[in-house]
């Protein structure tokens, strides 16, 4: 959505929302129950129709509900199409400067280590201007959860080339297609971050079908649990679309995504220290640095001061 469109949705309603429920009665006693997660405020979002940002905002809210953590969660909104998500999420929210969400989240988490802190970021925000903040929050093993929406484009500013735009992808600022000889190659964030010892959980998902949405929610929940259990930093990358700036219908955009993005950004778990048999990132890191005496935890390192 283009920046100017945001002004249309300016007045949000600051009331404590009840859990809303809409029931559509079907024939033969069947019914569809539409509920809004409590952690999603009853406001109209500013996303374009068919944009996965809406799905992901909802999934995050559902997970906050299911883990019953809305009241102890502080979210960080980025600069990008989801900038105004501070008005959508029911938990306390902080709006960060472009790319700085992981640093802002770090500050919050250090003050409230017993609370849950997440940052929701786009690919320009996370992988370009905020790459230093991203990498360092990850390597510090900050107990925060990052939700990373990779739509291979700068959505909010109207469709410029992103660090994740594919080779030969046409965008407003790569009108002849991304030329890897001059614009270089896309960044694969899950692969990159999984090399860092601070990362406890990294998974790449997508939300193009009910099945993949259910899977994305499972991953998201796991990422939040990883934070709550103090295991380490967690990130969920969502391979997404931008129907508006890709110039496609939502269905066509998902098709293009499946055809071009998924081979470049394969789905799956990239790091899971718990599944690898470690209690947390510290155990996993010590094991990785087995041959390095100084890098061992103090107990094992006794006497070597």
């Amino acid at each position: 959505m283009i920046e100017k469109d945001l002004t249309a949705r300016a007045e949000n309603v600051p009331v404590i929302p009840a859990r809303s429920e809409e029931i559509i009665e079907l024939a033969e006693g069947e019914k569809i129950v539409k509920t809004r997660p409590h952690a999603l405020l009853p406001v109209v979002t500013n996303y374009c129709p068919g944009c996965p940002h809406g799905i992901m905002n909802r999934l995050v809210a559902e997970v906050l509900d299911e883990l019953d953590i809305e009241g102890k969660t502080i979210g960080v909104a980025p600069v990008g199409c989801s900038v105004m998500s501070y008005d959508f999420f029911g938990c306390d929210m902080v709006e960060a400067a472009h790319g700085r969400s992981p640093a802002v989240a770090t500050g919050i988490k250090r003050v409230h280590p017993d609370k849950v802190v997440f940052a929701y970021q786009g690919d320009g925000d996370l992988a370009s201007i905020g790459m230093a903040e991203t990498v360092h929050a990850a390597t510090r093993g900050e107990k925060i959860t990052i939700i990373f929406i990779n739509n291979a484009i700068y959505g909010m500013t109207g469709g410029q080339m992103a660090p994740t735009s594919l080779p030969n992808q046409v965008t407003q600022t790569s009108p002849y297609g991304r030329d890897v000889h001059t614009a270089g190659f896309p960044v694969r964030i899950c692969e990159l971050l999984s090399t860092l010892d601070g990362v406890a959980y990294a998974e790449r998902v997508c939300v193009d079908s009910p099945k993949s949405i259910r899977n994305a929610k499972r991953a998201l929940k796991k990422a939040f649990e990883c934070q709550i259990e103090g295991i380490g930093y967690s990130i969920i990358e969502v391979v997404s679309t931008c129907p508006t700036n890709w110039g496609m219908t939502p269905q066509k955009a998902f098709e293009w995504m499946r055809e071009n993005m998924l081979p470049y950004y394969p789905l799956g778990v990239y790091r899971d220290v718990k599944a690898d048999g470690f209690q947390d990132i510290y155990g996993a890191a010590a094991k990785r640095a087995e041959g390095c005496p100084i890098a061992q935890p103090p107990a094992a390192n006794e006497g070597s001061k």
Partner: protein
Amino acid sequence: MATNKVLMKGNEALAEAALRAGCRFFFGYPITPQTELAAYMSKRLPKEGGTYLQAESEVAAINMVYGAAAAGARAMTSSSSPGISLKGEGVSYIAGADLPCVIINVQRGGPGLGSIQPSQSDYWQATRALGHGDFFMPVFAPSTVQEMANCVYDAFNVADKYRTPVMILADGMLGQMMEPVVMPEPIDPATLPEKPWATCGHGGERFHNVANSLYLVASKLEEKNVERFKRYEIIKATEQRAETFLCEDAEIVLVAFGASARIAHSAVVTAREKGIRAGLVRPITLWPFPVDTLATTFDTARAYLSVEMNMGQMVDDVRLAVNGRAPVEFFGRTGGIIPTPAEVLAQIERIAAEKGLGGCCCTCKNSDEA
């Protein structure tokens, strides 16, 4: 009762006083000449149950401060000139979100990488435009180690009271200098007033809090800015701080802050010995600029001399305050050079000669005689 005087470096006094003011969260990035401040914090904070975090950059550090301040804590960062430039973005967001925090600039020479020697060349940056947008922040300019300790205390209080970032503008000389100092009484952070606006989790007790500087409806942003500037008016009316020295009958009024005020002070003493009625106004807050104190000199002043360690920055504010009542001159050294008392005295004598001042016999008051 014996006062508890200790000998401390300026940078360490800033750190210790911040701890005593209830600051438990420090985010920084190494740079000379503020090094001792961060080192002190890294040593003390873990023992006080706080957080010292060496960020990946000044950009990250100030954004960590933003997060910690939004979360309701007294948070601080320190750096020196090149690092402060990087903090500009974050400070603008902090001001826009109405959050309190303290930023310390132990200035060095500039522009660019400049030098690592003392300087006051970030005056404009601190008082005019550290970041984009319509905002100011209170700026304290201590000139002794004792005052460095005291003003950290004041800075946190002013920050919380008006929900604004506050800067302490020191320099490499003050940071490195050792002087005896009596530390202020420690505050237990748990006893600080509640911050009902903090984003710390609503616990199901209230509507969500939001820390934000985005207002896409023009009239909303204007409303916000106008409200903030009303607060600035209160700050201007109540938070100006300055000290005067021999100004009652001063014909040549020097204006100097921080390290250069110490030199100007010596020059005034010598000028008085030579029978020139010189005085000194020393701004302790640079924003708000102490125009009220300066106004008390209008009756006697025949000329002003702004003494700075830069190419002439505060002199603009002196001119605005004096508003044509008397000529305002400037003397400064730059590049990391500290002006000498003799150089400043020579300027006073030149002005005295040009104006036919000095050589008075009966009314001139020396500080020792007064």
